């Protein structure tokens, strides 16, 4: 899935299911219904993962572990050329090899990037399949190509798309009058920031196992979107959606690279159809770097004007982004939205190159945008001789679109600033960037996050009660490794007065009730309210049954200590077990995540990150010493997995900020580091102590739990906070990530040269 579709999903603009989606009545005049978190037994408390033991003991079966009787191994031949006409593909020599069951042509007339699929085979084992690939004869006529995205901007560069230039404007926005705003400013700062191509690299690479039962297709897929893959497969294979089942029980991450239907899934289904056998295709680590997406690069030039007191008068942004044969990311949402500023103008361009298409990557656009926006805010603060945190507070908004749009239903960002600053010891920062001396300098930086995370109305979940007191929660969502399975159990247990371990959770199957893709920080605020709704209905039924036993009115029944009792006569009790037995058969309750007044309020998540770093100005090496991450994501469902999200996202941001970069080679048209040795990811020795903080602003307008998403918010400011801390340490902003020793030393030379 590309970032544009993804952002539509994240904003809740994508097609929603028609039908009984109830919108809560909008009351624009009402004060924000901020409520202190209710006293829960499980919600918001630390609950260990109900599947943790299975995962860490290796018993959890991931897609890669699926083995079926008579299963064949599929492999995909990929173009080594960045651009070529495919003149012919001869599959016969591969098919002649003993043990090869099928071969398919996949390439159309042209390939436009190295790594593009050309053909596929299915064979008895991996070695035979590999040998078969080497027997396929492909005749290419190579064409001129460009993989360097800065060269691709040149008018004389080879055209990536036939008959169209490589640069295309893909976003613009304007409010107020920026020229007037800059004229009114006392200080104007203009700076350019760059971000690199960042590969998702989930621990589990992409993979699919497909088989047919008659005319019904079953696919085990490593996916963030079982329903979307089902629909995509139905279209691609021209079969009814009702005849496709997509299963994903355990997953080793996706980060956006597994949101839509993957080519290898279609190939596996087609090979399975042809051979009448199960076919498994696993992608390699190299494939992860060439054909399943990455975070696009950006080159962002910000101009910002401010009065002496720090109030912003105008913002402009010109961004160039590159997403290979696909589009780049729009990075402008943070600058358009977060700070109070009457005048703002944005122009964004995408640059096409002969590399695989980018895909949504954990908080697409916002992560890149935060590096630039938060960087220029810090450079502006220095120009104003102002505390960077004070500058942010000075321009605090309570409405979106720079305080010109809808009121935020709730916004706990001020509390995030306060608690985060306290946790890091903000007062210890250098008053002026680069104030320290000696070869090792310390600095502290801050960066802000805004994201969506309201969830998707229409999400469905069932709670099924059994007479033996077992309880099942069923939802066609998926657990990417984030802890969805556990939070479903937490919500059901909380509502039903049980323990999370009492709940059997069923998810990761497109035959289950509909839930949206797991991306856009949608899962928790979609699924948890649906489970809550179903469980509340179940409680109503249980209370009615208990009332009959207790011979009191249903509204007189209360629940506690695994018993029902009459509020009017608490000595009258009936045990849960007896009430469940009275249900006589398993009884399902259908829950739904209802609507919210999105036309009257803006619903967003917020966060503020604080990093402390040490920079060796002789070696250019950065060490992150301490980190505090404060978030307003509404009601937290499970504190442990929420903290995991924050720690993981900060780690990823640190890694992208210091190490990660796909390096393309112009001569070969291929990446030089499509592996985990040369594409460097942070190791345990690089990760500091990380303090997650949740500010517990419960938005009762949004859903029945006041929960918002958290998957992406902590990724957004995590590279930026470190970059700003480095600026505070050495007195010059590196303005480019990853901040390798090479770039830190270059920045210090720029400082020495006085620019």
């Amino acid at each position, binding site marked *: 899935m590309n970032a544009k579709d993804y952002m539509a999903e994240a904003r809740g603009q994508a097609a929603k299911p028609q039908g009984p989606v109830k919108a809560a009545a909008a009351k624009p005049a009402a004060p924000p219904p901020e409520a202190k978190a209710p006293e829960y037994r499980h919600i918001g408390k630390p609950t260990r993962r109900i599947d943790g033991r299975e995962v860490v003991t290796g018993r959890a079966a991931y897609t890669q572990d699926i083995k079926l009787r008579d299963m064949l191994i599929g492999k995909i031949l990929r173009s080594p050329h960045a651009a070529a006409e495919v003149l012919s593909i001869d599959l016969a020599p591969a098919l002649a090899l003993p043990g090869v069951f099928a071969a398919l042509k996949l390439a159309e007339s042209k390939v436009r990037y190295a790594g593009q699929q050309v053909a596929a085979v299915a064979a008895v084992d991996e070695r035979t399949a590999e040998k078969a690939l080497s027997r396929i004869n492909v005749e290419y006529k190579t064409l001129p190509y460009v993989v360097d995205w800065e060269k691709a901007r040149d008018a004389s560069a080879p055209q990536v798309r036939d008959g169209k230039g490589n640069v295309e404007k893909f976003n613009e926005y304007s409010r107020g009058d920026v020229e007037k705003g800059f004229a009114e400013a006392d200080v104007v700062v203009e700076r350019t920031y760059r971000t690199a191509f960042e590969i998702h690299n989930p621990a589990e690479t992409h993979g699919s196992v497909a088989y047919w039962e008659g005319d019904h297709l079953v696919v085990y897929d490593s996916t963030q979107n079982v329903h979307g893959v089902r629909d995509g497969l139905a279209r691609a294979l021209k079969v009814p959606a009702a005849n496709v089942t997509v299963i994903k029980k355990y997953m080793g991450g996706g980060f956006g690279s597994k949101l839509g239907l993957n080519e290898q899934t279609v190939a596996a289904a087609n090979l399975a159809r042809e051979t009448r056998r199960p076919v498994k295709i696993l992608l390699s680590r190299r494939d992860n770097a060439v054909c399943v997406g990455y975070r696009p690069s950006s080159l962002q030039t910000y101009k910002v004007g401010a009065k002496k007191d720090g109030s912003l008068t105008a913002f402009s942004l010109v961004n160039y982004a590159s997403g290979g044969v696909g589009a780049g990311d729009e990075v402008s949402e943070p600058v358009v939205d977060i700070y109070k500023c009457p005048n703002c103008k944005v122009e964004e361009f995408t640059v096409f190159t002969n590399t695989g298409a980018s895909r949504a990557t954990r908080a697409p656009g916002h992560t890149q945008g935060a590096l630039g926006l938060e960087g220029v805010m810090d450079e502006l603060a220095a120009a104003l001789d102002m505390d960077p945190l004070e500058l942010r507070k000075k321009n605090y908004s309570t409405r979106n679109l720079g305080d010109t749009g809808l009121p935020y239903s709730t916004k706990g960002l001020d509390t995030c600033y306060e608690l985060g600053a306290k946790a890091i010891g903000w007062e210890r920062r250098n008053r002026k960037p680069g104030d320290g001396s000696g070869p090792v300098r310390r600095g502290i930086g801050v960066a802000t996050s805004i994201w969506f995370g309201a969830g998707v109305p229409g999400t469905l979940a069932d709670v099924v009660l059994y007479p033996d007191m077992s309880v099942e929660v069923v939802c066609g969502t998926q657990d990417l490794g984030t802890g969805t399975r556990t939070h479903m159990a937490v919500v059901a247990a909380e509502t039903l007065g049980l323990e999370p371990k009492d709940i059997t959770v069923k998810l990761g199957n497109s035959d289950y009730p509909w839930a949206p893709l797991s991306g856009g920080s949608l899962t928790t605020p979609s699924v948890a309210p649906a489970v809550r709704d179903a469980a509340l209905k179940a409680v109503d039924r249980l209370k009615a049954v208990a009332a009959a036993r207790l011979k009191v009115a249903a509204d007189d029944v209360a629940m506690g200590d695994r018993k029902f009792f009459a509020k009017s006569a608490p000595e009258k009790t009936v045990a849960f077990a007896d009430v469940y037995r009275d249900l006589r058969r398993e009884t399902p309750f259908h829950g739904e995540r209802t609507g919210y007044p999105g036309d009257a309020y803006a619903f967003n998540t917020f966060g503020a990150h604080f990093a402390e770093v040490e920079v060796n100005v002789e070696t250019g090496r950065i060490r992150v010493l301490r980190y505090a991450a404060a978030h307003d994501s509404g009601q937290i469902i499970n504190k442990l997995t929420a903290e995991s999200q924050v720690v993981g996202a900060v780690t990823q941001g640190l890694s992208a900020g210091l190490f990660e970069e796909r390096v393309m080679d112009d001569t070969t048209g291929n990446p030089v580091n499509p592996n985990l040795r*040369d594409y460097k990811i942070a190791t345990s020795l690089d990760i500091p102590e990380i303090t997650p903080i949740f500010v517990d602003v419960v938005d009762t307008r949004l859903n029945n739990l006041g929960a918002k998403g958290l998957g992406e918010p902590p990724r957004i400011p995590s590279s930026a906070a470190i970059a700003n801390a480095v600026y505070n340490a050495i007195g010059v902003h590196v303005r480019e990530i990853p901040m390798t020793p090479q770039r830190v030393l270059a920045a210090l030379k720029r400082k020495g040269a006085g620019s």
Partner: protein
Amino acid sequence: MREFKIAQPRTADELAALLAETKEPVAMMAGGTDLIDELKSGVATVGLVADLQAVAGLAGIVPEKDGLRIGAMTRIVDLAEDAAVARDYPSLRQAALSLATPQLRNVGTVGGNLCQRPRCWYYRDPQVVCRKKGGFNCYAFQGRNKYHAIFGGGSCYIVYPSDLAPALISLGAKATIGTAKGDKVVPLEQFYALPEIDVGRENILDKGQFLKNVRVPAPKAGQKAAYVKLKERGTWDFALVSAAVAGVVQGGVFAEISVVLGGVAPIPWRLRKAEDALRGKPVSEALIRQAVDEALKDASPLRENGYKADLVFAALKEAVLAAAA
């Protein structure tokens, strides 16, 4: 992965005979941490893998009257944990501990580390036929070269990746080469050869020869040494630049000194001009700067690796000051 045969000789003589006799391209496997990867990716294409695991007498650290003998099949972890190494050769221990990760050090060997193939990303790409693999071009020369050589390039700009070799060379180690006609001993420094000698290999091992052990001479009175490795991340990273310094310090002055760098040249790079500048003068930051500037006159950086010149100073400053302290 291409198919290959595997042989498991039991003695050094059997190994020498096997290597001398075989007609097929052969790779020796010590810990196998890197060779397996090369075979799987198709970068190494051999007909025979000689597994050294069972060869008697190749592993172990043995005190001798004039120093320490370290067998080629000694695991890195055993070198790092050896009491005599910790006592007499702290820089060698530092180098061993800075290397790879605990998992790799548990399996990887001294000989494998000293003979490891380059990490150049063009060499490691099975789709690329570079000069080292029999092609015409060094792709790094005009390509992506932030990790490549600033000294000693020319036909091929790989850098020598091992951490142990610079430390061992600075300590005056010698290499014992096993052959079918008996052992041959050379200074470890001369064990390595520039691409201009033979671009296909990084050392002087001819067909039929193998590294048997290294011998480190007994420390001299007043001997001081240090190893500094500059890398991008905290662990599991090859040196951007590393510096091994060893010498005899008398009253804040290096009476003898040797300086060997890793990560800057196709072989461990002896910085003789810096040694000359540092020898016999009171150690100071200014003297180190002067010594590095002198040595860097021989450097010819490529488009993306000029920053390594700054790192040479940073690494050498830290190593010299640590050794002199």
